[in-house]
């Protein structure tokens, strides 16, 4: 079971994502932005950070990386892809997920421990959670405010594509309190807060983030079996 973690120039949480995948029980493979080869991984994580400095718009330049062409194609064929924070931004810029992430409404970078509530756990990254479950994981971003037009939002809602919402306070002004969404097929998930920072007692506010990684591992095992 191999989970690939992409490093773009300016990726920062790539090591953390790899650590989380490892703790969850996967083998991890580091993927390089300039190398289109996915090295046979069973799932991909686009980690947090500031790819290309997040200049212009977050994720706008990263989506042109050679590795993204392969990921887009593979995602279309069902490869599980998780985008965390900057990864979520890249997924939106690459049109693998609808909508966009914009400047936090209070205009500050904000790092805090944040409650989320799962609204839908369909899909390959959330099988280990249950609908209505509340989890506490760190959020940290300057541009995490999710926006989309009403039609898109209604569709997301109708299709159960809104995976989790902010609970007990919205840290960035996200529309409809959206913290995480998935694509229709359920294999691509974007989340603004950081599950990979909540996988060890010593360094996180909880172990609540581990479920994303264990879920996908179970899913892959099921597919392979």
């Amino acid at each position: 079971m191999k989970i690939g973690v992409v490093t773009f120039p300016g990726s920062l949480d790539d090591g953390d994502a790899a650590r989380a995948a490892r703790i969850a029980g996967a083998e991890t493979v580091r993927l390089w932005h300039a190398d289109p080869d996915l090295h046979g991984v069973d799932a991909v994580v686009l980690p947090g950070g500031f790819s290309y400095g997040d200049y212009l718009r977050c994720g706008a330049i990263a989506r042109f990386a050679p590795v993204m062409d392969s990921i887009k194609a593979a995602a279309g064929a069902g490869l599980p892809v998780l985008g965390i924070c900057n990864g979520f931004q890249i997924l939106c810029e690459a049109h693998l997920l609808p909508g966009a992430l914009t400047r936090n409404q209070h205009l500050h970078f904000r790092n805090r421990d944040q409650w989320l509530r799962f609204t839908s756990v369909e899909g390959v990254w959330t099988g280990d959670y249950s609908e209505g479950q509340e989890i506490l994981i760190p959020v940290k971003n300057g541009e995490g405010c999710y926006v989309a037009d009403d039609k898109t939002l209604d569709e997301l809602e109708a299709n159960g594509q809104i995976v989790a919402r902010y609970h007990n306070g919205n840290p960035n002004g996200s529309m409809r309190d959206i913290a995480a969404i998935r694509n229709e097929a359920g294999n691509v998930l974007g989340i603004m807060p950081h599950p990979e920072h909540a996988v060890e007692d010593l360094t996180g506010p909880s172990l609540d983030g581990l479920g994303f990684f264990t879920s996908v591992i179970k899913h892959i095992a099921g597919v392979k079996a």
Partner: protein
Amino acid sequence: MARVVVDVMLKPEILDPQGQAVANALPRLGVSDVASVRIGRRVEIEFEGEADLERAREIADKLLANPVIEDFQIKVEEA
């Protein structure tokens, strides 16, 4: 050398917290007749040879603006 300017603005229906913040600060400067402030990006592209509007439009479309939230306008600027 020729310069093309691309102005990228948030679509009118998208909230612009930065513009809002400026608008909110104006009364403190004694300014009360401003209806709204919008803040966007101005991108100046210098071409090595002729100003290539088509090229610039392509760059703007693919990279400089995100069509989900932004509109853009392009013009050639005289040196």
